């Protein structure tokens, strides 16, 4: 094993760890989604059996949606599930493809940084004003917003790390590994 092999292997270990972490997050998101199903069901059944009614299912489900979609972005990123057009990509040699993969990840990182930055503003304002939702529940808005902001911040971490690893592996000219972590997957019928 040469020094560069060892470095590449280390990079792949980090990528694998990132993937595992995101898979656990996605499973947690899925579980929370099931909780939302239960909550919505109490609302539906509550129309027949008022005793079951908890109230606020719609509001709380909205918070769940904001949380799972945002935290899921990173999972979709490591699973290479975000929609990309491969019209030019799949006609390029490996180096060209790696460069486009880097551009793609850099653009995701840019979006994540800018949104996270402004998401923090929204959160900070809610905290400073002590804003509450305009509903019977009167939820302090910082609670759902801190989870939502966290999702974008995690997206900065995930896309930043992936970008770093992709640049690193490209510099080592290990294009088969770049493909594994950052390329557009070939359609196999297993997507979705």
């Amino acid at each position: 094993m040469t020094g560069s092999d060892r470095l590449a292997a280390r990079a792949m270990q980090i990528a694998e760890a990132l993937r595992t972490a995101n898979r656990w997050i996605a499973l947690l998101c899925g579980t929370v989604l099931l909780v939302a199903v239960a909550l919505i069901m109490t609302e539906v059944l509550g129309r027949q059996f008022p005793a079951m009614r908890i109230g606020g299912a719609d509001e709380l489900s909205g918070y769940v949606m904001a949380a799972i979609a945002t935290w899921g972005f990173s999972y979709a990123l490591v699973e290479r599930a975000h929609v990309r057009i491969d019209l030019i990509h799949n006609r390029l040699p490996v180096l060209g493809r790696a460069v486009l993969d880097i551009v793609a990840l850099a653009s995701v990182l840019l979006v994540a940084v800018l949104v996270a930055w402004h998401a923090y503003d929204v959160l900070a304002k809610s905290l400073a004003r002590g804003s509450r939702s305009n509903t019977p529940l009167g939820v302090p808005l910082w609670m759902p917003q801190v989870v939502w902001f966290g999702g974008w911040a995690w997206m900065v971490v995930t896309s930043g790390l992936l970008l770093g690893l992709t640049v690193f592996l490209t510099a080592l000219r290990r294009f088969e590994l770049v493909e594994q972590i950052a390329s557009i997957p070939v359609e196999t019928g297993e997507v979705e």
Partner: protein
Amino acid sequence: MIWYVSIGLAVLLALSVPVGAALFILGFGLDQFFSQMPLMRGLGQMVYSSSDSFLLIAIPLFVLLGEILVRAGIAERTYATLDTWFSWLPGGLVHANIGTATMFSATSGSSVATAATVATVAMPQARKQGYDQRLFAGAIAAGGALGILLPPSINLIVYGFLTQTSVPQLFMAGIVPGLLMALGFMIITAVICTIKPEWGGPSRSFTWAERMAGLPHLIPVLMVFAIIIGSIYTGWATPTEAAAIGVVMALGIAAFYGAVTWANMRAALLGTIRTTSMVMFVIVGAYFLNFALGATGLNRALSGFLEGFGLGPYGMLMIIVLMYIVLGFFIETLALMIATIPIVVPIVIGLGFDKVWFGILLIVLIEMALITPPVGLNLYVVQGARKEGRLSDVMVGAIPFVFVMLVMVGLLIAFPSIALLFAPG
């Protein structure tokens, strides 16, 4: 500014920048170069309000519902049953492909998932019984496309969300065109296979006892569909509530077939989060771009630009239809739909067309994009499940069905009531 947006979008997409990120970046650019107001200050609030949504959580719920049913083996049982009912027709099993895709569309909100599911179940049968695989595979790709027209439909939810159109109305409006199209698919299959029997495969007959024996397997899917649509139609439940009821029913059905295992649930939940996040990233990006376009007045500029041609409403509509057909060759469908809605829908409404009706027309056009090469996701999905032969076989096989879709587009324009008949006002 019109050129900035269209060329910018084309360049970013060609560079294979993820679609959601491309939409965001266009929005950032509008803020930098064209806006008097600092749009970025609204960025956080825009992104938050597009994610915190009781309507949009219907998307993961419908995806989850489909994921659970697939793993309960519903598609296999439906296919075997429809085989006994339809295989005497000219074209044999091809009708079972269309029928299974139609049934599955009625519980799944996604075309790709529908095509993938039916292809996995059906393609081995094509080999076993010596079918010409072109028409066989084309029918799966086309049948799968029904997934986004027959309710529940993720694409209709997205359309409703971005254009503030009633999702229950959109769902109801999708039923008749969806069923008509399934019927059209079967008719054209029967016609082709009567003229050229070698394009199909052996017709087989089953006894009535065999046919009846399979019927109970159709009950779960029909029941899920009836309850989802019934509860929405009567106004008893919102789309999101209906989706939650559907998930609970799907869990019950899966439990009945002994399919609620840890491995199945894990796979279903992961698949749901992946699909949802993929869709949501594009939606959130489109929502921000929509806001930026509105704030910079591009929507108005574009409408003015187009009205300058003096083509009249139907002339303009033709241009829009043609644009979707052409773009549909090249652009992935979800991206095509979401990225164009903020620009196209205000124009169409301005021309005096109905929002619900246009939603249905748009979906049929998007379905066409799903099965037209070179970029037609369903073609790839079916080919992926086929694991033999060439992609071009599927493309050729899909052509007759593209023709049916074109007829449907014509019918919808000539007779809008096809869509609006059952859409309560």
